[in-house]
């Protein structure tokens, strides 16, 4: 019953976002602000985890490929495909669910508890449209870009490790990256990125927007929003993989 109640309220919140903006200029300003908060604000962590996941992926693949009958070029292909198919979209988005999700939930929760949302409502502003929609749109714009950046940095991270440890020659790694490349994988990764971007922004927005209580509840809802977002991301990951691969 609780799930149906929350899911219904979540859908009503999403429906309520779509109304004529009172002043499009302010909505645009808020959207750009959110792009900066979500996109630029997450740039550092995305760069760090992407380089390391590429590096670790390269080392661990090389460690497992001990059979002399398997060409070492495959290390590059495995790094490329795992980064594009799974690590960049899923791992980065799970990290972003924590970084961006908790920020969205606590920001909206604080606004709710301190009556700032009520103040906007009293002014005659559609708060779902003014506060929630720009966050979701900004996430849909910036998170896929971060995922693309993560793919590039992951592959570079793998190359740096290969070059530093001498597992295989870098020229072989570069050749491996270009061998049997399937562009559809990038499309699949982007489909995941857009889906996860929506999950990362809308679920925490729901938990933040409907906070009821005080600062303790903001913390609880913020944590809950990250947990639920991560579970839904993993579920969506499985569904998308089943449908699109």
């Amino acid at each position, binding site marked *: 019953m609780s799930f149906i109640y929350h899911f219904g309220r979540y859908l009503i919140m999403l429906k309520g976002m779509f109304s004529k903006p*009172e002043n499009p200029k302010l909505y645009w300003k808020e959207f750009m602000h959110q792009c900066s908060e979500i996109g630029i604000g997450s740039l550092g962590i995305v760069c760090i985890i992407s380089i390391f996941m590429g590096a670790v992926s390269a080392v661990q693949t090389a460690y497992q490929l001990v059979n002399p009958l398997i060409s070492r070029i495959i290390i590059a292909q495995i790094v490329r495909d795992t980064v594009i198919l799974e690590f960049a979209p899923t791992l980065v988005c799970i990290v972003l669910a924590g970084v961006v999700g908790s920020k969205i939930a606590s920001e909206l929760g*604080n606004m709710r508890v301190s*009556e*700032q949302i*009520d103040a906007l409502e009293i002014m005659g*502003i559609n708060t779902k449209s003014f506060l929630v929609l720009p966050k979701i749109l900004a996430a849909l714009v910036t998170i896929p870009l971060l995922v693309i950046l993560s793919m590039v940095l992951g592959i570079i991270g793998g190359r740096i490790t290969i070059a530093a440890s001498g597992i295989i020659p870098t020229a072989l790694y570069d050749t491996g990256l270009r061998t049997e490349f399937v562009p559809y994988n990038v499309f699949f990764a982007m489909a995941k990125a857009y889906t996860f971007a929506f999950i990362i922004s809308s679920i925490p927005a729901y938990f933040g927007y409907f906070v009821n209580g005080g600062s303790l509840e903001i913390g609880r809802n913020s944590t809950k929003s990250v947990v639920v977002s991560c579970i839904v991301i993993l579920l969506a990951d499985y569904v998308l993989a089943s449908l699109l691969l």
Partner: protein
Amino acid sequence: MIEFNNISKRFGEKIVLNNVSHVMETGKTNLIIGTSGSGKTVLQKCLVGLFEPDEGNILYDGVSFTEMNEDERKMLRQQIGMLFQGSALFDSMTVEENIKFPLDMFTKQNNTEKLKRVNEVLERVNLSGSNKKFPAEISGGMKKRVGIARAIVLNPKYLFCDEPNSGLDPQTSMLIDQLIKDITLEYKMTTIINTHDMNSVMEIGDNILYMKDGKKEWTGNSKDIIYAENKNLNQFIFASEFLQGAKKNMMQQQPK
């Protein structure tokens, strides 16, 4: 004028408002008083549409608020200003940006005109020169005044104040009361104040609605209250021996 008839509201099994009816008069400071949990905040939230009453009708100058659609309510809300208990200022904005926000959202004025209006209202609430400060950098009393400035910047017809004196020292409290009273007369607004501040009741109570357990218990003004025979009201207003002594003095000074 705001008139509400037979307003009822319940949360689950708990009846918070029970058939409350009253008329809030224009150009007067209308007070809703009562102990904590008596339903005054819920009543005020019903009046501004933050809560939907389960029963009853609310009329703004004769027009039914309860029957308005969302767009009509949005239009009406541009004529409503509200001062919240915690001021509800936007943390990330300066005092100037907080007050300018409704102007940015709802007017087509240029920036110079907007800033002129912001400075006017800041001067009106005696906060000239505080434009660039953030809410975290100003005192509780100043926050209330910024809240009032933001509430009146669009020249509203109706002003709602939820416990404007809470957390303030008696002197600042009196200044805020007087400011609200003066602004009400100046802007010819219908002002509705939720309070349990005894001083506010006696100083600015033009039209008082006393509530207890979600019901209307007594109505009158600050003069009537001295001679009110309602036992609950007397226990609420003149709670301490000091206040009972003050009541006796007031009765001597203002014979019935």
